[in-house]
């Protein structure tokens, strides 16, 4: 038997200088019946927790991931490197599903 790492992180699809954004057909929305926030995308509605909502709320189409991370770290008074990892993994998952796009500055 070989030991497996507790979690295998997929290779990131977003770099610090990249500008992540919600493309056409993807939008943040209130789910008034369930009382939560959702990300609406082609044939898929994803229920968001407070962290996911906070990250996606920062995507304004002009700021880089690094700037978004700094802003979140300041706002939540959390270590920047930890926030950076969380944001990178969360966005990578959404980029894999084509629910977030990135462009170079």
């Amino acid at each position: 038997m070989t030991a497996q790492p507790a979690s295998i992180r997929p290779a990131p699809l977003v770099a610090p200088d990249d500008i992540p954004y919600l493309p056409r057909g993807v939008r943040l929305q209130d789910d008034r019946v369930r009382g939560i926030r959702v990300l609406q995308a082609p044939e898929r509605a994803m229920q968001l927790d407070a962290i996911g909502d906070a990250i996606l709320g920062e995507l304004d189409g002009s700021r880089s991931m690094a700037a978004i991370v700094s802003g979140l770290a300041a706002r939540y008074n959390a270590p920047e490197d930890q926030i950076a990892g969380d944001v990178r993994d969360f966005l990578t998952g959404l980029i894999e599903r084509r629910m977030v796009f990135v462009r170079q500055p």
Partner: protein
Amino acid sequence: MKDQQHQPRDLDGNPVTPGLPMAMLAEVTHRCPLACPYCSNPVELTRAAQELTADDWGRVFRQAADLGVLQVHISGGEPGARRDLAQIVAHARDAGLYVNLITSGIGITRERLEELDRAGVDHVQLSLQGIRPDMADRISGHPGSWDKKMHFAEWVKDIGFPLTINAVVHRQNLERLPDMIDLAETLGARRIEVATVQFHGWADLNRKALMPTREQAAFARQVVNDARVRLRGRMVIDYVPADHHAVFPKACMGGWGSTGLNVAPDGTVLPCHAAQSIPWMRFENVRDRDLGEIWQNSDSFNAFRGTGWMPEPCQSCDRKTIDFGGCRCQAMALAGDARATDPVCSLSPLHAQVVARAEADAGADTANLIYRRMRKGD
């Protein structure tokens, strides 16, 4: 007594708890210029005169949104066969729903597509019957369909809609799956859905001509796996395998009456698009009753909710809350009993028989198709 009336119960009388639906399939018409031999519409098609009006749909969409539905899939038939499609779309957006348009691309001009953009279509899913004119036109039974689809895909790109390609695969076109994936990429699709024909209704009439072989199913799996690695971050590939070759059944609809519902052209509300193949089941209509009441309280939606109704081997199976015993319509078709374990499950006593029949159909020496048509006078 009153209490009992308000407690939803499954077909055995076990209490069940309806959840909240996420998505609704709105089949706004059964009319369609194509004649695909695996059409998911029922063999008994609804005529134009029986269709709900655009205002009826508006009322249904508002009831759906109040019930928790977030997305509507506007489909058919070909939804473009409705001249008031833009009005239907606008009603859905006004209700706060995310609008997916599921189309063959036939019969919607560029001008109409721009009108649908203004009305609020969020996303377009375009069906593909094959690659290149010979296969696409033969399978769809519509000469010229390929060229029209390729024009349509260009307009979708120009306008900027997100695009999903829906490639329906079967024995006659599975070899071309790599080309279909390449085409979706060329067209700028964000996603391709590779759906193996599900053998209900019209498709069941064409089993001998369409059933994939075991080798083809393995080939398709390999193609999909390789493409997922190659296209990571560029295009999503969703894959519905041939379930006659599976070990466990699909979790049909994510569980009966749990997350989705379907409204047919005449307003009949169905737990899934094939549910009318269960002959004893009675369905309610949005013309008579509020959609929310139908979802919560109708016998059809409650019949197979939860797990209490399940027979063995499902009842004692660890997977009963994963695949919910599989597809009720497939159980009806293959076991003659909508309550039975889906016979494609390897734990079903009928499994060996089902596999043998699928293998025999896959080896049948015929390519002849029975096309989906409305009867004369329809």
